[in-house]
């Protein structure tokens, strides 16, 4: 499904987000080599120039590092990975809060609703804790 994109944002940006997601979930570990430009182009079914742009952006943000003649690698810089983690967390929170506000919940209601959800038996978080 990785070759499906929506039209809200440029494709290259959506690919950047997906790769960041993989890094945060440790599917790409610090120091891992990212797929070659061609392999990534084949995987996402996009032009190789789009992947070049993706990798340029990742390098520009410090999330990836170019090693001449070898390829593009995930950074091993803990500070950058921590920053990425925080940014992702902030983004998830913003999205969640925006949607909840749209539904009409006040901040206090959002907190109590979330707490209740986490504490209910059906919550997947409780299941994880019980494992």
């Amino acid at each position, binding site marked *: 499904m990785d070759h499906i994109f929506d039209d809200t944002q440029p*494709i*290259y940006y959506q690919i950047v987000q997906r790769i960041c997601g993989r890094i945060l979930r440790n599917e790409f570990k610090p120091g891992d080599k990212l797929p070659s430009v061609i392999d990534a182009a084949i995987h996402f*079914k996009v032009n190789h*120039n789009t992947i070049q742009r993706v990798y340029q952006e990742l*390098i520009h943000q410090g999330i990836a*590092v170019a090693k001449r003649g*070898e390829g593009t690698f995930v950074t091993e810089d803990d500070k950058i990975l921590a920053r990425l983690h925080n940014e992702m967390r902030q983004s998830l929170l913003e999205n969640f809060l925006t949607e909840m506000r749209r539904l009409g919940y006040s901040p206090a209601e959002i907190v109590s609703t979330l707490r209740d959800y986490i504490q209910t038996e059906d919550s997947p978080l409780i299941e994880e804790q019980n494992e």
Partner: protein
Amino acid sequence: MASNNKQIVISTKGITKRFGKRIVLDGIDFELPKGQIFGISGPNGSGKSVFMRILVGLVLPNEGEVSVFDQQIGHEVEFPKATGALIDRPGFLPTCSGYRNLELLAGIRGVASTTKITETLALVGLDPDDKKPVGTYSTGMRQRLGFAQAIMEDPDLLILDEPTNGLDFDGQREIYGQLVELRKAGKSTLITSHNRDELLILCDKIFIMHNGRLQLVPEDPQTEWTPVQSEGSDC
């Protein structure tokens, strides 16, 4: 994104080809700028291969002009210079090895050295020391050898008709890598393909051959890329 300064490698004006009463190519105007990969898609029999053969001088059009590197094909020169081509199934001497076949071709054209032949065979995934006659090659191996002969002399232009025909996934992938590397080095490529994904991955512009004319496939506005040079990226 044509600019006045862009060097044009292939230029055709009004190319028309008829077979009997059937108009196969109907007044084609086409340009390939330097350093780009352009692709032509279209069903079998649409005229893609005829167009490619006209570009390399194997077939003469009924009307129109072709220029490659500013030389008119069929007038100033018979075949384009500095051009490697792979059109139709590659023709080789079936009793000779892959290496010997390239050596003979190199001898005729007098450009590629022993080292170059060996390197090129390795580059396309064939064993330079393999003595098996080409007649025993699989389709995929013949295709690899065909690609080898096209790139052997470091051409500035590649004209490739269905270059990944008969290749498995790894073989296709290697060809894509080669073509993108060649593009980085400023070489120009025109390919035809049935495979839409392949054209999407490789091409700066894609055309469809329809009713004897080339139609440009509009770029997806979301794609929004500009070609960049990335030092670390490999293919």
